[in-house]
Every structure is written in C-alpha cells, then in structure tokens.
C-alpha cells in the first residue's frame, strides 16, 4: 500500500476510535451544564444554550452529593492505606523470607483467585451482621483490607530486591522489622504507588459489595448514591449527568496524573508468574 495512504488510514482510524471512546464523556460534561429538561428535546442538543451550574448546586444542596463524595474519599483512602500495608508485608514475606510451606501457600492463594468474590458475599453479610458492621464504613473497608492480587503484585516486584542487601543488614544486627522499613520499603516505592492507585480506583468504582452492605444513605459511596438517584430521578437527565461528572472526574484526573504507574501495574499484574 502507498505509505501516505496507510498513514492517513491508520491515523484516521485512531482518531475515529478516540472519538467513540471520548464522546460519551464529553457529552456527559456538556449535558451536566444544561438547564433541566433541555436535553429531552429534538433534535438532541449538543451544547447547552445557557450553561448553568444549577445541576451541581442542586446535587450538593439537596441530594447530599458532598457527603457521598466525602464517603467515597474516606472509604477508598482507608482501603488503600490498610490493604497496602498488609499486602506489602505479605508480598515481601512470600518473596524474601524463608518459611516452611512458602511455595505451597502461595500456590494456594493464586489458586483461590479463580473463586469469584461474589461467592463469599452472602455469608459475609451474615458475618458482618454478627460483628455489627452492616451499614457502616467498616463494613465496606474490612473485607478489602488485603487482596491476593496485591500480594502477588508485591511479590513479583520484591523478588528483584537483592538478597545480599538483606543479608548485609542482618549481619550488621538489624532486626527484620527495621530491614523491612528502612531497606525494603524504599526499594518498593514504585510498586507502592502503582498498587495504591490501583486499589484506590478499584475501591472508588466498586459497586456490588457497597450496594449490599450499605443500607442507609448516610454511608453511601458515590456509585451507590448515583445508582439510587438514577432510579428515583430517571427523568432528570441533566441532573444525572452532573452526578456522573462528580463520580467520574476524580478518578479520571487521578489516572491522568499517575497513568505511568497505573499502566505499569497493569502490565506487571498480567504477566504470568
């Protein structure tokens, strides 16, 4: 094929695909600034005639969106910090500490990855009821405090830490805890950032479990609140689009800021171990 033509074709296709990928998001942004009822007219308008912040104001003033935003931030941050701590420790132990049954235990964990999380949900609800954690932040956070995927990711990365470094520190008389904190953690920093944004995004976007365990709206996270609003206010498309913007924008910005780490984690997590 003529290379000029090929260049135009390839870039044209990419441009088209990008348009399909981004248009729904741009449309959401545009409609969120329309006045109530404007989007339900023919032909469907692409841009607001008189841009307004009214939908956002209504969401924060009447629908308690501010509270849901704070809930989402709180729950996602807590899950990120707590699971990061436990996954780092466990992943490091699997990579660098010696103990009986290490490989078998790790294989068992990897094997458990085939069990869909939803299988555990029904008894988990009863367990949390027994612990008094239904309809609380803890009910969402506690089951997310460690993940097999996170442990796996850390182990893969931590295997690259040179053994000589650890041995030298041991000979110098450093305790295991100090070695972990002062030598290993600084080396694991890139994977920490990666795992942190991975976990944060997953927690932010998580739907099914918070939907089940949060019974009252005071603890709702944004996706739950949005789904609930969408059922009650299906008619108010402009309002719903503003709600979608509030839900999507924080994670989109976070991704744009840290995408290098995110994409690295994605690749690391998908290479067979």
């Amino acid at each position: 094929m003529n290379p000029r033509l090929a260049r135009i074709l390839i870039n044209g296709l990419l441009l088209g695909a990008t348009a399909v990928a981004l248009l729904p998001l741009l449309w959401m942004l545009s409609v969120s600034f329309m006045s109530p009822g404007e989007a339900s007219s023919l032909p469907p308008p692409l841009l607001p005639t008189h841009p307004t912040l009214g939908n956002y104001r209504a969401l924060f003033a009447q629908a308690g969106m501010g509270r849901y935003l704070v809930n989402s931030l709180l729950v996602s941050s807590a899950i990120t910090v707590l699971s990061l701590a436990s996954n780092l420790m466990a992943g490091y132990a699997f990579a660098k500490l010696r103990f009986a049954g290490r490989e078998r235990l790790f294989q068992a964990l990897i094997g458990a990855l085939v069990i869909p999380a939803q299988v555990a949900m029904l008894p988990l609800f009863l367990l949390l009821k027994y612990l008094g954690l239904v309809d609380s932040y803890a009910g969402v956070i506690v089951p997310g405090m460690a993940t097999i995927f996170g442990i796996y990711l850390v182990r893969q990365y931590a295997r690259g830490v040179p053994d000589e470094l650890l041995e030298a520190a041991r000979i110098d008389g450093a305790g295991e805890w100090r070695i972990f904190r002062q030598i290993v953690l600084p080396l694991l920093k890139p994977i920490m950032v990666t795992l942190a944004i991975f976990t944060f995004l997953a927690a932010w976007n998580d739907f099914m479990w918070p939907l089940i365990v949060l019974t009252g709206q005071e603890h709702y996270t944004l996706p739950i609140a949005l789904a609930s609003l969408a059922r009650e206010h299906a008619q108010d498309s402009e309002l719903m689009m503003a709600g979608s913007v509030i839900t999507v924008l924080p994670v989109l910005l976070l991704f744009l800021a840290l995408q290098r780490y995110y994409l690295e984690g994605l690749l690391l997590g998908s290479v067979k171990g």
Partner: protein
Amino acid sequence: MNPHRTAWLFLMPALLVLGIFFLLPVIAALGLSLTDYDLYALANIHNLRFVGLHNYWALLHRPLFWTALGNTFYFVAVGVPLSIGTSLASALLLNSPLARFKPFFRTALFAPVVTTVVAVAVIWRYLFNTKYGLVNYGLSEIGLDPIDWLGNPHWAMPTIIAFAVWKNFGYNMIIILAGLQAIPPELYEAARIDGASAPRQFWHITLPMLRPTMLMVTILTVAGYFQLFAEPYVMTEGGPLQSTMSVLYLMYEDGFKWWNLGVASAVAFTLFAIIFAVTMLLLWFARRGERAEGGRG
C-alpha cells in the same frame, strides 16, 4: 528472632483478613447452599431446614435460571471476542510506526477503563434512549428507523455488550500492546527480506508470538465477563422481559432482594463451577493447540 516466626508475623494481617472475610465465607456459602435459609430463618433459626442438594436441583428446573444462564453465555460469547478483537485492532494501530501522537491516543482510548461503571452506564442509558438519544438521532439523520435499544428484548443485550466493549477494550489493549512490543524486530526484518506481505507477517509472526498474551487476556476477560452485574442493574434492571438478567443478577435478587440466601448460594456456586470449567476448557484447548503446533514445527 526465629526467621519462621518473622515470616508468619509479616503474613499474619493479610492471611487473617483473607481467611476470615474470604475463605471462611466461601466455605460457609457451600453449607448455606444446602439449606433453605430465608427471611423466616433469619427471624427465627428454628425455621431453617436442611435440604441437601434440593436448591441445585430446583435451579435446574427454574426457567429464570436458564434464561439468566443463556443471557450470561450470550454476553460472554459475543462480548469477549468483540472486546478482545477491538483491543487487538487498536493495539495494532497504536503499534504501527506510522501512527502519530501515540501517548495521546493511548490515554484517550484507555480513559473509559478507569471510569465508574455506574456513572458511564447512566450516560449510555441516555445516549441510547429511544426518543431523545443521540444514537437514534444519528440513525434518523441517515434515514434509518429508530431502534428501541434498551426496551426491545432483542436489542437490550447487544446494547449492553456494546457498552461493555467500549468500557473495557482499553485494558486488554495495553496488555496486547506490550506483547506486540516484546516481539523481536529481527523476526519482521527476516520476513521482509523473504518478501512476506504484511498480512502474512501478521499471520505467521505476530499472532503466534502473541499467543501466550492472548490466552491470558482471554481467560481473564472470560472470567470477568461472567460476572456481569452492574451494567444491567443500572441500564435495564434486568429487563426488558428479563433479557438482560445475568446469573450474578439472579444471585443478587434471590439473595439480597428476597433474602433466599440458600438458593442464592446455590446460584453463586453454580456460577463458580461454570467459570472454573470454562477456564479449564480454555487452558486445555490452548495446550492441545500448542502440542499440535509443536508437532508441526
């Protein structure tokens, strides 16, 4: 300090969490699926009956379960190839030396992946609205009749599949792109010297070299797509005529809407068994294919 004890102390937090909040419930779910645990039993445990395998047996005689299973298979069978095909195509485009602004395109194509399913499903619900949706407006502009995307039982699942492809293809695109970049350029050079055309190069170099990547991507995507839930929950509520009711949605309704926890656990385990079987089947096929390949080469 004893190195063994140290190791277990490091493992303790994660293993406790996984043991108590994942493994234990999974085992309990198996037990639960052998009972008729429901609201009556929740109110008073004396109303609980042990029913053996009856929940599984009843499931096989329940039309709605077969509907949900059929819908889920439909979603997987059509959605996964489309999804991976789109990922492969976009990865090939991005990998082409002729492509410009690669980082921009890559980020833009990946953006839907990080968005929240619920939020973007809400957007799609409006875009595909029969009357005021942009999609039908576009159709009418080119002279086609409007389609009742989410209201017609024949169109609702295709619409949800299109949504899932849009939302997810970027993820596999990145993985496949990395796979493409790992193919040694010498292979292509040698092929070019031999005079192999671009399609031949794709068929004889790119695809075989991508094989492990594609297998892994397929297995992960299949397992993920079997867990269809949020999309129909937000876009169609399982309708119209339960044409978008998935197995997981059925488990959710049985379990957390009607509180038949015994029945719902049986649904969950059945889904688990299916995912497991399909994964094994894929691995078996892949291995057999490898052996055949090896025999030829």
